[in-house]
Every structure is written in structure tokens, then in C-alpha cells.
């Protein structure tokens, strides 16, 4: 069901406003970061303060997006994520990290190198002590971070390519095995898709996107440690099962989107 031309135009304007607000938010964080850096407190406190600030702004932002009619947000299975949890999500859109971090403020996020160099995001991402996935140390840093926070990783390594099957890189599996941390799989669907790879900001979808994020039951890694002495084989097996679990969930979610009155039976999604 697509919008009338007038509604479409209004959403286009609102989209532009949304982008501007995001840029202003980044600028605000930059301004806040400087006095925060000067605070005479331990690094851990500073990092925690920066993460909570960013999370608060992101939460506000997602509310602004909903108010502007740019998105409806539906989150299921949200619960406390303790330190030592690896949260693995697929990554269809630019908004994924914004939503996830607003829901799990204390998370350490694995982010791509470009974000550490972009003038708008570099300072927040560094002050919040997130991890650069381009760094040769990223595995070790991620395992270390798990000692004090949950870890968020978009295991596709980048935003999904529309139409391509789901493929997770094995970094998340290696991290979880090394840290002996359980994995919380998260499946994200956005229908109709927007802010996907390859699209310009003004190529907006035909109707208001519905963003559905489901946080699934944790996947323990102990069984995979027992599979083999070789870490490479443990990681392959774990990654395969993790991909399968998320792929199955995504299939069910996509059907749910087409049947907008429907509700999802989660029992059929486990395993």
C-alpha cells in the first residue's frame, strides 16, 4: 500500500529533517565530549557517561523519527544484556546501530573504520571506546571488552546487500568462543527497506517503514568448544548454526510484514 503523492512529499521533507537532526545530534555530542574529556574521573566513568549520553540521544532520535512518521518501531524479546554477552545482529539499514545502542546503552560496539575517521562520528565513537573492526587487534579488544560490557557486532561486516542471502563473517563466532560468552542473536527486518546500501538519502520507500527487531534466546557456545580442538572448526560450526537461526527468524519476520495484522509465533523460531 503506497502513499499518496502529497504524503510521499511530506515524508521526503521529514526524511531531510531527520538527517539534519542526526547531524545536529552528532555536533551536540562533539560539544559535550570536550568537557567530558576534561573531567577528573577514571576512564571507565567517562566512557560510561559518553555511552549513556549517546544512548539517550539515540532514544530521543528514534522517538523523533516515529513522530515525523518516518518509521514505526517494534522491538521484541528486549531484556537486560549482562557483560559477557555477544549480541549478533544482521544489518539491513543505517538506523540499526542507533536503535540497538538506544536499547543497550552500555554495549561496546564493533564499528567499521570509516566511522573512526568521519568528522561527525569520530569523536563520539572514540570517546565511547568502541572497537575498530579494521584494527588487527579487534578480536583481542572485543574479548577484553566482554569482561565489563555486552558486545554488539553486526556480523555481516557491513550493511546487507539487498537480495543477497545472509552471510555472517566468523569474527563474532571467534570472539564468543575465545571469551566463552553466550550469543544473543538478533534479527532485524525493515519493510519497506530504507537507508540500505547503495541508496541515496532521498530515495525513500513507498510507505512508512516498519522496523521489527527481535532479540532471540541466547545461544550457548560450550557445545561448540567440544566439537574439535581446532578453533577454526568450532567457529565454522558455530557460525553456520548462528546464520541458520537468524535466517529462519528473518524468513518468518518477512512474512509477518506482508501480513500486517499477524502476530508471530516465536515457538516455531527456536532452533
Amino acid at each position: 500500500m503506497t502513499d499518496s503523492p502529497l504524503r510521499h512529499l511530506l515524508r521526503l521533507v521529514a526524511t531531510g529533517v531527520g538527517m539534519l537532526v542526526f547531524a545536529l545530534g552528532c555536533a551536540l555530542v562533539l560539544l559535550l565530549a570536550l568537557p567530558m574529556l576534561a573531567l577528573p574521573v577514571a576512564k571507565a566513568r567517562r566512557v560510561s557517561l559518553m555511552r549513556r549520553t549517546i544512548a539517550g540521544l539515540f532514544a530521543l532520535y528514534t522517538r523523533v523519527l516515529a513522530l515525523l512518521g518516518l518509521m514505526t518501531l517494534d522491538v521484541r524479546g528486549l531484556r537486560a544484556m549482562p557483560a559477557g554477552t555477544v549480541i549478533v545482529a544482521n544489518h539491513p539499514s543505517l538506523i540499526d546501530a542507533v536503535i540497538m545502542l538506544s536499547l543497550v546503552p552500555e554495549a561496546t560496539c564493533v564499528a567499521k573504520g570509516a566511522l573512526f575517521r568521519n568528522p561527525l562520528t569520530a569523536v563520539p565513537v572514540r570517546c565511547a571506546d568502541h572497537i575498530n573492526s579494521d584494527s588487527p587487534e579487534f578480536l583481542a579488544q572485543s574479548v577484553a571488552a566482554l569482561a565489563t560490557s555486552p558486545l554488539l557486532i553486526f556480523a555481516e561486516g557491513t550493511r546487507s546487500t539487498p537480495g543477497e542471502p545472509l552471510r555472517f563473517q566468523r569474527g563474532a563466532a571467534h570472539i564468543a568462543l575465545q571469551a566463552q560468552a553466550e550469543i544473543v542473536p538478533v534479527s532485524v527486518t525493515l519493510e519497506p527497506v530504507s537507508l540500505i546500501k547503495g541508496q541515496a538519502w532521498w530515495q525513500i520507500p513507498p510507505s512508512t517503514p516498519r522496523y521489527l527487531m527481535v532479540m532471540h534466546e541466547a545461544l550457548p557456545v560450550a557445545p561448540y568448544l567440544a566439537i574439535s580442538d581446532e578453533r577454526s572448526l568450532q567457529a565454522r560450526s558455530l557460525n553456520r548454526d548462528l546464520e541458520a537461526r537468524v535466517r529462519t527468524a528473518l524468513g518468518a519476520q518477512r512474512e509477518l510484514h506482508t501480513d500486517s495484522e499477524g502476530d508471530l509465533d516465536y515457538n516455531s523460531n527456536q532452533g
Partner: protein
Amino acid sequence: MTPSKEELYAQLLSVLDDLFEIEAEAVSMASSFAEDLDIDSIDAVDMMVRFRELTGHRVEPEAFKKIRTVADCVDELQKVYSGAA
């Protein structure tokens, strides 16, 4: 004494089987590690460590980064052996 290319290739096949369960039939000299054999950067480090354990010789990381195919790897291993000898 530097092993021949065939011997090095056989050694490599055995490492690929042990570490990644890749069967010999799936591999050729032209095989690309990343595209054909699904070997990522983490796997590459494991391979380097295993070579060092088996042979006592070390492939330098900078040289290892340039390796794209099985043929490249065999060449590099030969260099390492003759360099050390």
C-alpha cells in the same frame, strides 16, 4: 634441503584438512584462499602458526598478506625454506 613444490603442496593440503576440513579434491594451485576456500584473515593467522609449528620456519606477516592463491603460498613457503637454509 628445500622441499619441492609438490611436497610443499602436499603439506599445505594436510594443513587445510586439519584446520578447516577442506578436502584435497576441492583444492588446486589456482585456488584463491578467500574466494574459493573461504579462508579469512583469522584463519590465515592460524595457518601461519601451524606452519611454524610443523616446519620451524616462519612466514613474515607482510609476505603472508600478499598471498592470494595456493600457488602464491607454495612459492612463499619455498622462499622461506631456502632463505632459512
